[in-house]
C-alpha cells in the first residue's frame, strides 16, 4: 500500500510528463487492439479504427479521471487554493497589509514573550541531567525562619547519606582581586571541591577542582569565569600558569569556565560569579571542628543519586533529619522543628519570576486574540463583498466544503505571512527588545529564537489563522444562493447571521480588552502607590559608593581584623570625604545599610543582613521571628538619611570597641519584641556562643529601607565602630555627580590603602528605582499590551459600526426623507454601538474579577476588586466606544437623502 501510494504520488508530481505519455499510449493501444478485433470481423482498417474510437468514448474525460485517481489529490487542490488565495490577496493589497500587520504584531509580541518564558521557565537548566539537581533548604519553622542554611557537620551527613551523588554548599562573597592594573571587586562563590562535578560542567580550558580533595582550609586554586578572564587577564591563553591575589591570599588559576556559564543562583549577582574557590569548610581560617548548630553555610545544592526521584529522596531526607535530631538532641531543640526541604534547582533559579512571566504571556495572548477577532471582523466584511463570487462558484458546482476550504486556506495564508512578518520584526528588533528585559531576570543570556520558539510561532500562526478564518469560512459554506445571486453586482447586505456574528465578535473583543485594561490598571495603581509611599527616609541627593576591606585567610596579616583596627580607617575616610567639594554630609555603613539595595539581597552574605538573635529574659522559642535585618552604620547615618530619633540616643563618639555594644532599633522592632515596655536598656545577643550582649539605646522611626512594599519590618542598627564590616558603603549627601564623585572617593580610598577597590557609585534614587525594576517591567509591558488591546477594540467597534452605517445608508436616507431629525439618526447609530460596548464591558468585568484575583500577589496597596480601577477602566471603555461610534454616526448624519435614495 505505502510504496504503491508513493509511486502513484510520484507519478502525479515528479514524473508528470512520463505519466501523461504512458496514459496516452495506453489508451491508443486500447483503441488499436479493439480495431484489430473489429478488422478481424471484416471491417476496413480505417473504419475499424473509427468505430473503436467511438466505442471508447471521449479520451480526454477519461484521462482526467485517471489523473484524479493518482494519489495526492488534496495537494493539488491545496496548491490550487494557494494560487487562488495569493491572487485574491494581490488584488486587495490594502486589506492584506492591514491583516498581515495586525497578525504580525500579535504573533511577534507573543513570540517575544514566549522566547523569554521558554528560556527562563521551560528549558532545562544548562547543566548535565538537570532534573537530578536540587537545592537544599533548611527551615526552622518553630522560629519562623526559612532557608537558614546548614552547618558543616550537616553537610557531611547529607553528603554521606547515600541519597546524593554530591552535595555542595555555596557561599557567595565579594572579594578584592589585586595584582592586575587596579584592585577590583569580584563576585566570588565559595563551594565544595565537588561543585563542578555536581553540576556536570567542565572548564573550557584547564581543569576544575578535584572532587575528592578534603584537605582543611581553602584549596589554593581558583576557577575563573570567561568574563573575568577577558576583562582582567586580556584573554591570556597561558592563564593556567598565573596566580591571583584575593584579599592578599595567593591562589593559582586552574581553569576558565566557558562563556555563558552561569551559576545557579537566585539573583543576578549570584548567577554572574567571576571566581570559584573551594574548601571543605573546616580548618584554618575556618574552625577546625565546626559546631553542628552553627549554620554558616547559607545555601547548598545537590545532585541526587541516579534514578532517585525528588519525592523519594525527600522521604529519605526526612528520615535522616529525624535520626539526626535524636542523635544530637542537644543541638536540635524540638521547638525549632528543624526540617530540610529538597527543591528542584530550577525552582530556586526561576521560581520568583514564574508568575510575572505567565501573566505577561497571558496578556500578550489576549492581545493576539483580540487582533484575531479584529481580523475575523474584517474577513466577515470582505465575505459580504465576495458573496457574489462565492454564490457563482456554488452555482457552478463547487461543493460547500470546497469553498470553506478555500476561505480557510486564504486565512491561513494571511496568518502565516503575518507570522513570518512577526518573526522578521522580532529578529530585527531583537537587540532593542533585549534591553527592555530587566537585568535581574534569570537566564537572560539564554534567550534566543530557538527551534521551540519557531515552532511556537508556527503553531500560534496556524491557530490564529483558523481562529479568525473559521467564522467567515463556515458562513460562506451556508450561503443562500438565491438571495446572493439576486444582489445584482451590489455588496450583499449582511445576512442576519453574519451581522450577529460580527456583533458577537465585537462583544468578545471588548470583554477581552477590558480584562487586560483592568489588569494593567491594577498594576499601575500598585506601582503608583509604591512610588508614592512615605519612604521614611530621604533619598534625595544621596550617592552611595562601595568599597571592601580584605579578609585574608591568615588573620595575623589582616590590617582590619577587629573593629578597633578598622575604626581609624573609617573615621579618616569620613573626614576626607567630607572635605570633597559639594559634599555636605558623609556616613559609612555596611552594604546592607544602603536603603532598598536589591543587588545583594537574598544572598545572606557572611556577617551581614539577616540576624538570628536571643532577647534577654525571654526564650529563643518565643512566638516572634527572631530573624531580623540588621546593619552596621556610623553615627551620622540616621541624620544623613533624615530618619528621626524617637527615644533615647543615637551612636556617639564614646561608643567604641572597649565600651559595651549598643544598638539603635526601629519602632517596628520595639513594638514586636518589647510591646508595652520601654525598649531602652533592653538587651539581646547574637544566637551564637560567646556573642556579647547588645543594649538598646535608641529607637528611630520606621523607614522603608528594606522593602518598599512593607512599612514595618523590624530593623536593628549596630555601631560600625563596634562591629566593623568588610563591605562598606560610603553615603554622601550634597550636590554631587555620581561618576565624578566615584573618582574622587576612589582617590581618597587609595590614599589610605591602595589595595582597596571602589565601585558602584549610584544615587539613592537610582537604587530605589532599581528595586522596582521587575515590577516596572511587568507593569509597562501589561500597560503596553492593554493599550494595544484598547486600540484594537476601538478599531473593531469602529469597523462594525461603519459597516452597519454604510449598509443602512439607504434606510437612513428614507428616514431623513420622511422627516427624521439628524440627532435622531445620531442616536440610533450611537445606541447600536454603545449597546455592544456595554454588553462587552459587562462580560469583561466579570472575567476581570476572576483574573484579578489570580494576580493578587503581584498587587500592592490595592485590592483585586479595587472599585476605582474597575470604574475608571469601564468609563474609559465606554468613552472609547463613544468616539469609535461617533465618527461613523456623524457620517450617517450627513447622509444626503437624495443621494442615498438614488444609490441603488
Amino acid at each position, binding site marked *: *500500500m*505505502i*510504496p*504503491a*501510494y508513493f509511486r*502513484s504520488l510520484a507519478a502525479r508530481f515528479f514524473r508528470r510528463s512520463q505519466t501523461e505519455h*504512458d*496514459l496516452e*499510449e*495506453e*489508451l491508443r*493501444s*486500447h483503441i*488499436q*487492439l*479493439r480495431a*484489430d478485433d473489429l478488422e478481424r470481423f471484416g471491417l476496413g482498417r480505417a473504419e475499424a479504427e473509427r468505430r473503436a474510437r467511438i*466505442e*471508447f*468514448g*471521449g*479520451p480526454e*474525460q*477519461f484521462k482526467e*479521471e*485517471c489523473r*484524479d*485517481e*493518482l*494519489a495526492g489529490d488534496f495537494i493539488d487542490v491545496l496548491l490550487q487554493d494557494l494560487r487562488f488565495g495569493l491572487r485574491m490577496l494581490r488584488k486587495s493589497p490594502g486589506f492584506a497589509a492591514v491583516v498581515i500587520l495586525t497578525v504580525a504584531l500579535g504573533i511577534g509580541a507573543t513570540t517575544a514573550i514566549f522566547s523569554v518564558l521558554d528560556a527562563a521557565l521551560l528549558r532545562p537548566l544548562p547543566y548535565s541531567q538537570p532534573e537530578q539537581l536540587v537545592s537544599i533548604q533548611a527551615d526552622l519553622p518553630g522560629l519562623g525562619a526559612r532557608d537558614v542554611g546548614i552547618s558543616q557537620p550537616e553537610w557531611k551527613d547529607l553528603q554521606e547519606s547515600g541519597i546524593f551523588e554530591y552535595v555542595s554548599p555555596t557561599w557567595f562573597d565579594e572579594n578584592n582581586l589585586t595584582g592586575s592594573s587596579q584592585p577590583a571587586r569580584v563576585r566570588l562563590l565559595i563551594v565544595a571541591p565537588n561543585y563542578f562535578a555536581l553540576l556536570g560542567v567542565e572548564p573550557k580550558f584547564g581543569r576544575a577542582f578535584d572532587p575528592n580533595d578534603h584537605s582543611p582550609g581553602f584549596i589554593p586554586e581558583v576557577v575563573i569565569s570567561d568574563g573575568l578572564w577577558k576583562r582582567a587577564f586580556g584573554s591570556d591563553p597561558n592563564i593556567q600558569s598565573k596566580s591571583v591575589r584575593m584579599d592578599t591570599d595567593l591562589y593559582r588559576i586552574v581553569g576558565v569556565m566557558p562563556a555563558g556559564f552561569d551559576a545557579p543562583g537566585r539573583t543576578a549577582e549570584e548567577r554572574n560569579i567571576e571566581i570559584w574557590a573551594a574548601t571543605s569548610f573546616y580548618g584554618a581560617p575556618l574552625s577546625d571542628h565546626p559546631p553542628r548548630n552553627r549554620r554558616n553555610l547559607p545555601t547548598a545544592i545537590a545532585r541526587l543519586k541516579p534514578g532517585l526521584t525528588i519525592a523519594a529522596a525527600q522521604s529519605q531526607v526526612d528520615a535522616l533529619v529525624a535520626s539526626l535530631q535524636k542523635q544530637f538532641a542537644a543541638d536540635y531543640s524540638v521547638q525549632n522543628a528543624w526540617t530540610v526541604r529538597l527543591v528542584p534547582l530550577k525552582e530556586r533559579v526561576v521560581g520568583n519570576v514564574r508568575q510575572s512571566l505567565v501573566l505577561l504571556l497571558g496578556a500578550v495572548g489576549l492581545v493576539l486574540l483580540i487582533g484575531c477577532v479584529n481580523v475575523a471582523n474584517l474577513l466577515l466584511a470582505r465575505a459580504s463583498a465576495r458573496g457574489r463570487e462565492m454564490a457563482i462558484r456554488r452555482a457552478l458546482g463547487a461543493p460547500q466544503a470546497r469553498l470553506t476550504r478555500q476561505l480557510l486556506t486564504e486565512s491561513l495564508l494571511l496568518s502565516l505571512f503575518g507570522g513570518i512578518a512577526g518573526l522578521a520584526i522580532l529578529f530585527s528588533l531583537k537587540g532593542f527588545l533585549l534591553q527592555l528585559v530587566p537585568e535581574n531576570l534569570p537566564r537572560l543570556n539564554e534567550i534566543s529564537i530557538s527551534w521551540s520558539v519557531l515552532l511556537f510561532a508556527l503553531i500560534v500562526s496556524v491557530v490564529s489563522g483558523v481562529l479568525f478564518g473559521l467564522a467567515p469560512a463556515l458562513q460562506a459554506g451556508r450561503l443562500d444562493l438565491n438571495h446572493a445571486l439576486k444582489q445584482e453586482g451590489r455588496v450583499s447586505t449582511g445576512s442576519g447571521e453574519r451581522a450577529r456574528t460580527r456583533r458577537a465578535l465585537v462583544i468578545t473583543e471588548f470583554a477581552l480588552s477590558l480584562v487586560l485594561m483592568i489588569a494593567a490598571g491594577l498594576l499601575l495603581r500598585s506601582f503608583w502607590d509604591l512610588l508614592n509611599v512615605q519612604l521614611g527616609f530621604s533619598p534625595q541627593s544621596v550617592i552611595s559608593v562601595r568599597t571592601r576591606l580584605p579578609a585574608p585567610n591568615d588573620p595575623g596579616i589582616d590590617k582590619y581584623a577587629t573593629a578597633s583596627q578598622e575604626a581609624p580607617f573609617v573615621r579618616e575616610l569620613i573626614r576626607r570625604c567630607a572635605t570633597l567639594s559639594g559634599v555636605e554630609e558623609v556616613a559609612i555603613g555596611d552594604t546592607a545599610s544602603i536603603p532598598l539595595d536589591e543587588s545583594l539581597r537574598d544572598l545572606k552574605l557572611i556577617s551581614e543582613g539577616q540576624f538570628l538573635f536571643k532577647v534577654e529574659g525571654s526564650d529563643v522559642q518565643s512566638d516572634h521571628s527572631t530573624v531580623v535585618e540588621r546593619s552596621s552604620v556610623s553615627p551620622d547615618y540616621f541624620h544623613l538619611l533624615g530618619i528621626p530619633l524617637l527615644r533615647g540616643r543615637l551612636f556617639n563618639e564614646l561608643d567604641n570597641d572597649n565600651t559595651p555594644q549598643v544598638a539603635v532599633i526601629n519602632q517596628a522592632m520595639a513594638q514586636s519584641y518589647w510591646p508595652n515596655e520601654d525598649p531602652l536598656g533592653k538587651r539581646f545577643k547574637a544566637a551564637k556562643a560567646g556573642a556579647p550582649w547588645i543594649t538598646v539605646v535608641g529607637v528611630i522611626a520606621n523607614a522603608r529601607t528594606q522593602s518598599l512594599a512593607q512599612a514595618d519590618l523590624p530593623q536593628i542598627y549596630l555601631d560600625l565602630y563596634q562591629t566593623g564590616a568588610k563591605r562598606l558603603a560610603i553615603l554622601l549627601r550634597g550636590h554631587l555627580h555620581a561618576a565624578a564623585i566615584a573618582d574622587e572617593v576612589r582617590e581618597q580610598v587609595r590614599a589610605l590603602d591602595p589595595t582597596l577597590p571602589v565601585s558602584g557609585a549610584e544615587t539613592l534614587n537610582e537604587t530605589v528605582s532599581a528595586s522596582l525594576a521587575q515590577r516596572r517591567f511587568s507593569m509597562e509591558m501589561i500597560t503596553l499590551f492593554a493599550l494595544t488591546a484598547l486600540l484594537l477594540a476601538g478599531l473593531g467597534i469602529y469597523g462594525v459600526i461603519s459597516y452597519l452605517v454604510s449598509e443602512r445608508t439607504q434606510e437612513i436616507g428614507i428616514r431623513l426623507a420622511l422627516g427624521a431629525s439628524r440627532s435622531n439618526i445620531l442616536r440610533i447609530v450611537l445606541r447600536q454601538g454603545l449597546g455592544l460596548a456595554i454588553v462587552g464591558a459587562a462580560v469583561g468585568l466579570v472575567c476581570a474579577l476572576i483574573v484579578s484575583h489570580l494576580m493578587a500577589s503581584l498587587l500592592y496597596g490595592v485590592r483585586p476588586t479595587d472599585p476605582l480601577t474597575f470604574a475608571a477602566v469601564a468609563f474609559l471603555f465606554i468613552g472609547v466606544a463613544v468616539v469609535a461610534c461617533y465618527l461613523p454616526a456623524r457620517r450617517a448624519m450627513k447622509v444626503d437623502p437624495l443621494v442615498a435614495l438614488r444609490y441603488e
Partner: protein
Amino acid sequence: MDYEAELLPGTLDLLILKAVSIGPLHGYGVLLRIAQISGRALLIQQGALYPALFRLVRQGLLKTSWDKSENNRRAKFYELTSKGRKRLREETEGWNRLVAAIASALAAQPQEI
C-alpha cells in the same frame, strides 16, 4: 446487446480483480475477459475502465508492466498483487453473502413470515 445489465456501483473493481486474477491482462483484455466470464451480460463503457485501473494501482492491488500483446502491440499489462489477491478473496466472500441474503429475502413467501 440489449441484455447487457448496468453495473452495480462498486462492482467494477471486483470484476477487474477477478478478470486479472487468471493472468496478466492489458486494459482491452480486461474488458474482453469480463465480457467472456460474465457471458457478455455486463456492460462496461470502455474508457471508464481506466480510472478504475488507476485506482486499483494506487491502492496497491494491481501492478503494471509494459509488454507485447498477442498481436504484437505494445500494451500496459495489469497483474494482481498478493494484496490484490487477498482483497479479491474477501470481496468475493462479501459479495456472496450479500447475494445469498438478498436472494433469500426476495424468495420469502408470505406464509414463511
